[in-house]
């Protein structure tokens, strides 16, 4: 599966990329929203793993931008973020139409759980 990983932290990005590749996925890793959009333009991913706390443009801005393209409407997006669910409650209504498949709170999500979420993302949407 082609995974687009949007993770701003260099060390965590390295770790998540290696873990997903170890599980058999092909991973394109980007550290900001703009280059993630460019990466999707070059090669359409099967699933996106997105941190909301990004430099310059936030993950929320990325979501709006991303879903504004008709050809990218069906790509599942997993929120994998340091932002606690509690802090996102006000934004739940915002996220619903944006096709967020799953929310994972990063500090409480093991590599194994992340890999499982990615493995399950496409069948979930189908």
């Amino acid at each position, binding site marked *: 599966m082609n995974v687009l990983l949007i993770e701003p932290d260099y060390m*965590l990005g390295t770790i998540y990329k290696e873990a997903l590749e*170890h599980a058999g996925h092909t991973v394109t890793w980007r550290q900001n929203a703009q280059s993630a959009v460019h990466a999707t333009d070059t090669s359409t991913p099967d699933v996106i793993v997105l941190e909301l706390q990004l430099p310059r443009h*936030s993950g929320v801005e990325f979501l709006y931008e991303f879903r504004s393209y008709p050809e990218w409407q069906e790509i599942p997006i997993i929120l994998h973020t340091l932002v606690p669910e509690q802090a996102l409650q006000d934004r739940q209504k915002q996220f619903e139409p944006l096709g967020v498949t799953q929310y994972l709170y990063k500090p409480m999500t093991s*590599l194994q759980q992340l890999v499982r979420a990615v493995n399950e993302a496409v069948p979930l949407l189908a």
Partner: protein
Amino acid sequence: MQTSADERLLRAVAEQLKLPLLQIARAAELATTTGNTAQLETMSYIADTALRLIDGFLLSAEYGGQESLTLVPVSISSVLQDTAHKLMPLARQNNCDIEINLSGKYGPVMAHQESLESAFTLLGYSLIEARPAEGHRHEVILGAHRSASGLVAGVFDNQPGLSTDMFRRGRALYGTARQTLPTVSGANGAGVFVADSLLKAMAAPLHLARHNKLAGLAVTLHPSNQLQLV
């Protein structure tokens, strides 16, 4: 300091600690899963930096920003060398270059060595972690130069506006509301705030400065007169 500001700072420190602990936890898990132990050395430095943040926070909470540390003659070049040595693995891991730049030779300055090292380590770590984007090589410089008011020593970098932003985030913890969704991961200013508190306890508050055309966060230290007379 008012209670609400204390709570805000405590929360910022807790949030700031999330990232290093998360990095350690996931790197350990990766090592278990794949057998890749390449990051073990870096993990120990990350843990050390997190401990410095906790220690610095406890010290600043205890003294409440009072000038309380006993100052002794300290070699600034050796403090900067030691700090660079500690930050090197973190910088390497974050795709960042780290250098020391001393414009000349300096005699000892009056400081508290351990707190000065902790402050520079926290400032360096904050700048390294706050790197704004990929594709632009980040350089962090530990530097010192003479000025009319003393020896200016600090941490500088080549990302325009980053150190100013970090300084603002650190100072914001003294009073204004925190952001619920910060734009830069792991850079909420707690490290800068604690560094500032440690430096204040040496009667040398943190300030913005420039070094070789680079912007950064620095402290102005006074030469040790006693040793100059010897």
